[in-house]
């Protein structure tokens, strides 16, 4: 399937916007409930950044689509099968270890992607990426430090973190999976081929995991589906909660 650049921009921005939004939502669930006050503030801050990135990507998606859908229309009026986020980010928080590992696996990918997108010839894409890059660099530093602290902390924290890593690893393949949109943008030189991010991502992950005294899981079978709207059972509940007000009061402006 070939698609034109505007369609590709729409699909790609939706993927990034949805992924940021859903991950931001998951982090925001920690607000008021984190293990210590500094971390409560940090997680809320990262959630804030991610929702901010979602706004930019979804606005860009709406423009590329050209059907008059704005960020809120896209965020609040699509059901699960139209969401294009990676399955990784919709996984539930479980404990702080799962939250941090999920975050690190994502952040390490986001920083690689945004570094490349920041030099995209598409001004819209480059602008968002350059803005987000500064924040994402802080995110990956924060989550990597915690992976190390938890992995190389106590026996309990080591075990919990290894379990989280094993559990979430099969969700990492999707971040490098090409779809029609990302392939078209890669062909047009607007975005990198996602497969090309894998080597540097893997190296960063390997370094951090080693420093954390954890064992990197073997690659193998990977979950798929987010890119074609086939999500886990978790996303429906997340959207029911997130979208309640705009759905219940369709005529309201907030």
């Amino acid at each position, binding site marked *: 399937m070939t698609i034109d650049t505007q369609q590709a921009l729409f699909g790609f921005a939706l993927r990034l916007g949805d992924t940021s*939004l859903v991950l931001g*939502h998951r982090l*925001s*669930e920690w*607000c*008021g*409930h*984190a*293990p*210590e*006050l*500094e*971390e*409560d*503030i940090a997680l*809320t*801050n990262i*959630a*804030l950044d991610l*929702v*901010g990135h*979602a*706004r930019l990507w*979804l606005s860009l998606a709406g423009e590329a689509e050209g059907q008059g859908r704005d*960020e*809120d229309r896209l*965020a*609040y009026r699509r059901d699960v099968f139209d969401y294009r986020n990676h399955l990784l980010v919709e996984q539930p928080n479980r*404990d*702080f*270890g799962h939250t941090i590992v999920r975050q690190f696996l994502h952040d390490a990918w986001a920083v690689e992607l945004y570094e490349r997108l920041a030099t995209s010839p598409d001004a819209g894409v480059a602008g968002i990426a350059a803005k987000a890059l500064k924040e994402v660099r802080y995110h990956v530093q924060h989550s990597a430090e915690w992976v*190390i*602290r*938890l992995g*190389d*902390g*106590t026996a*309990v*924290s080591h075990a*919990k973190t290894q379990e989280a890593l094993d559990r979430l690893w099969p969700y990492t393949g999707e971040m490098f999976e090409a779809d029609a949109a990302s392939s078209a943008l890669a062909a047009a030189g607007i975005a990198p081929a996602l497969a090309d991010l894998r080597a540097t991502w893997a190296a960063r992950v390997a370094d951090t995991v080693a420093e954390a005294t954890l064992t990197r899981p073997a690659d193998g079978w990977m979950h798929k589906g987010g890119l074609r709207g086939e999500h886990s059972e978790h996303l429906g509940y997340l959207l029911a*909660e*997130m979208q*309640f*007000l*705009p759905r219940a*009061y369709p*005529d*309201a*402006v*907030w």
Partner: protein
Amino acid sequence: TDNDIRFQERIDAEEKIEPRDWMPDGYRRTLVRQIAQHAHSEIVGMLPEGNWITRAPSLRRKVALLAKVQDEGGHGLYLYSAAETLGVSRDELVEQLLAGKAKYSSIFNYPTLTWADIGAIGWLVDGAAIMNQVPLCRCSYGPYARAMIRVCREESFHQRQGYELMLALANGTAEQKRMAQDALNRWWWPSLMMFGPSDDQSAHSAQNMAWKIKRFSNDELRQRFVDATVPQAEFLGLTIPDPDLRLNAETGHYEFGAIDWSEFNEILKGNGPCNRERLEARRKAWDEGAWVREAATAHAAKRAQRHLKNVG
């Protein structure tokens, strides 16, 4: 004692008391209690507002609410730090909170039931807090006064944001307007109670005035709040739920109905709609976070050990 006299002279001269200065035990105790209570209120206060983050009705509102709740966590941090300058640790204070031995503002024992409550909290609760807190920027104890300057600056931003949220509802659909009025109905009286009992019922007031920890009486501050807020409600087109409310043309002040202190006293006893939930949420966060804090401590120790070995 001479110390006491010199201390009071410094206070009277509007000098700031700093952590290493001599101070009466009562002054220290009062401040620790008040600052801790204030810090706890910020932390517990994250919960009712946090309750609507995942359900904020637009991404713009979601980001604003995240930022606001994050600010509250920050206020908690400054305030715990200010308390620590008086020789008490944050962990001690948190333990008192979790054990149910320390107070926090009763207002946070009310639930947030609709999105309009987020507006009402910003407008009314933060509005009342600011009335209480602005005078504290001139509190005699330096670290507290400086923390309050920063807190007040952010709070007044929150207050304007809350009012703007209410305005959007008040100008919105009939259902939104109903939501706004309903929130005002539920938050009005609890906000008035935030200033505490009437002056004639209030212990310690005179001493705290003399120490310049307190600069205005509860009733004075409450009156100021009512005077500032009633015209705002009128501008919103909302009705204050008080049939006795009227402007006294002579004094220029709004007179208002009698406050039902029995509800306030029940909540103080632990019988509020959410007392139990709030403390439980804090305890759960603390207990479930224990392994994380232990890991961080263990890792820091290992790191220090390795560092010593490398440089040693």
